[in-house]
């Protein structure tokens, strides 16, 4: 038997399907970071003064900070002067006016990634903002969305076209002082998506942003701001990929969600940055600050994430439950294989009375990967009759992977009900044998067991993406057992 089993191991080579590089001319500024670089980025984007001022304040704060070291991550030192902070594919000065003016190589790139940008070929009912290195290439269905009053555009357009909204909300959820990476992002962010859903509007389509890092030695620092005005509803999805390279690349994003009275945002992520090879060479360093501010009564936010890529993941999408009866949800599947490391989780800050939160975290660790769940549930004295339920399950594959759980609870109101359940299990040989005895191949059996483990999270994803997430998981764990 053992001899036969090892044949399955030929699948051990992890296949990263999005590892190609697009050969396209680019406008990339030299590595290094100082105030002049920030002025240059701001000038390239033709930004109003308030934006530059904010960037500079953030930069001046950032230089006083040190990288956080509390996460359970083993990271090679990052040389922030060795990174280029802006890279854009060559195009006309004004940028493309329509898809016809977009470089065909870019369109082809997205085609290859399974994201056709021509509206007639696009996924029905999904509008896409395609961000390539530091800039947005195009945003589909903008006109159709505008009919409903929805604004969905590249962040750099929003700065120019809707400065009053940007100035009002930017940094209001994640201030530039928040943490090291948020400060860095605030200083140098290049592009990202901006969404505004007006009062009472249910966004007629799914919105999505597709982030692609292409250029070597660059970082990607995107910023997303979504504002759901009173009584509105939107479902938003982001996807991420990068080429395979031997060096590490930095990705430090900030996402801010503002949710007013009776509004709801459903935010889903399928993160598949290049994870590095089996020996841990290369891969993206993914340091992300995501936070939702449920400001109004009965407001709701739901984070769903499938984290499969990146060499390092440092990410805690959080919910500030300020409004009465506000609801925060966090559904997460994190997969680490080979030498990947992830320290991820969420924060639920209960401020409003009757606020409720749910955390479902599923961690899968294979190879030599290390993964931690880190979560904070904080009940403020003002938060009467709040509830939290946390469920945190880890699945280990093989003998060398690790799973760790760091749940924190701070409860300052005696009426709160907070529950925490945690399990750690190994993918059991008897489960595998049971499936194989019924006729499933070893790989299919692993996929079926793992997908079963993640089911509670996958069912929260929009339909098209649930399928993609499932496929991604299968690829990520190929050869993990054998």
């Amino acid at each position, binding site marked *: *038997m*053992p001899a*036969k*089993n090892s044949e399955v191991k030929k699948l051990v080579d992890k296949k990263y399907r999005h590892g190609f590089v697009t050969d396209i001319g680019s406008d990339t500024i030299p590595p290094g970071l100082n105030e002049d670089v920030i002025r240059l980025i701001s000038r390239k984007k033709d930004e109003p003064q308030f934006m530059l001022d904010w960037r500079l304040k953030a930069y001046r704060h950032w230089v006083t900070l040190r990288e956080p070291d509390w996460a359970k991550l083993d990271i090679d030192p990052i040389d922030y002067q060795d990174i280029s902070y802006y890279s854009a594919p060559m195009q006309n000065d004004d940028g493309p006016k329509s898809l016809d003016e977009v470089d065909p190589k870019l369109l082809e790139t997205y085609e290859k990634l399974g994201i056709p940008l021509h509206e007639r070929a696009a996924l029905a009912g999904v509008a896409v903002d395609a961000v390539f290195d530091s800039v947005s290439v195009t945003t589909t269905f903008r006109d159709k969305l505008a009919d409903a009053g929805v604004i969905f555009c590249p962040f750099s357009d929003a700065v120019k076209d809707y400065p009053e909204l940007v100035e009002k909300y930017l940094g209001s959820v994640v201030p530039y002082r928040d943490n090291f990476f948020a400060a860095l992002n605030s200083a140098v962010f290049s592009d990202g998506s901006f969404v505004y859903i007006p009062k009472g509007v249910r966004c007629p389509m799914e919105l999505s942003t597709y982030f692609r890092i292409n250029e070597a030695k660059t970082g990607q620092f995107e910023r997303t701001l979504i504002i759901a005005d009173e009584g509105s509803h939107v479902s938003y999805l982001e996807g991420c990929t990068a080429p395979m390279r031997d060096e590490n690349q930095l990705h430090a994003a900030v996402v801010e969600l503002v949710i007013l009275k009776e509004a709801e945002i459903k935010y889903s992520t399928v993160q598949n940055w290049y994870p590095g090879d089996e020996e841990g060479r290369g891969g993206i360093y993914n340091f992300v600050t995501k936070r939702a501010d449920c400001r109004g009564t009965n407001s709701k936010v739901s984070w769903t994430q499938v984290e499969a890529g990146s060499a390092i993941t440092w990410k805690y999408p959080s919910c500030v439950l300020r409004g009465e009866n506000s609801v925060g949800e966090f559904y997460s599947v994190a997969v680490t294989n080979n030498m990947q490391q992830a320290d991820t989780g969420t924060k639920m800050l209960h401020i409003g009375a009757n606020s409720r939160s749910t955390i479902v975290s599923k961690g899968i660790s294979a190879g030599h990967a290390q993964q931690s769940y880190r979560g904070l549930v904080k009940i403020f004295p003002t938060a009467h009759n709040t509830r939290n339920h946390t469920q945190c399950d880890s699945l280990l594959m093989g003998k060398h992977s690790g799973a760790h759980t760091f749940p924190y609870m701070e409860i300052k109101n005696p009426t709160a009900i907070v529950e925490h359940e945690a399990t750690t299990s190994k993918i*059991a*040989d*008897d*489960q595998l*044998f*049971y*499936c*194989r*005895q*019924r*006729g*499933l*191949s*070893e790989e*299919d059996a692993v996929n*079926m*067991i793992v*997908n*079963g*483990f*993640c*089911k*509670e999270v996958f069912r929260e994803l929009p339909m098209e993406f649930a399928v993609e997430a499932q496929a991604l998981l299968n690829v990520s764990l190929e050869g993990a057992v054998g």
Partner: protein
Amino acid sequence: MLNIDNLHATAADTKILKGLNLSIGTGEVHAIMGPNGSGKSTLAHVLAGRDGYEVTDGSVTFLDSELLDMLPEERAWHGIFLGFQYPIEIPGVNNTYLLKAALNARQKFHGEPEIDAAQFLRVIKDKARLMQMEQSFLNRSVNEGFSGGEKKRNEIFQMAVLEPRLAILDETDSGLDIDALKIVAAGINALRSEDRSFLIVTHYQRLLDYIEPDVVHVLAGGQIIKSGDKSLALELEARGYDWVLEETSSA
């Protein structure tokens, strides 16, 4: 159908099977009885290809193929089914989904098209009725939260859907109350046919009150030490195993 010749197997360096010979013809029902630790479950597991056992000598042919060379799933595709003594729970995996994937994997192996969804649904409804299982069972996670009796019924239900050539049932009767035992036995009997064989591993004669075996074997010390017709099971029930062991050692 199945020919076991001089099978020796060890688990964790302990010799368990020590020259076992057994031949099962097409359409026959064989029962294997024997004292605890005699190697009954090991035999079932070795035939199904479970990891953790090493075959040190002997051979097993199944339908003219060398069984021991095959992966567990290949054995399943060739028609081996193992009813587990302790069926495994798989959270989040739908019972029906597992069966459909298993069936289609076999179809693919034999170069046949996937099972038509409507037809599949008809089949599982029929078989669920046979096992007196509620429809809701079909959409629950595999064995999760099932009672002991429900798990065993689910094993036979799976067997009914997969229609194996050789069903190896490892103590399917253990832990069943009399009503559940009758349902399980009726399910097995309904599947008896000219081209399907059974190897029933059991401690107790009571299952054989409902399922009449063609041959009864006594397994002790890693070998088949006595074979007979169904009356042997009754005799074992009445007299225990000691007399067989003595008979063998004095012979």
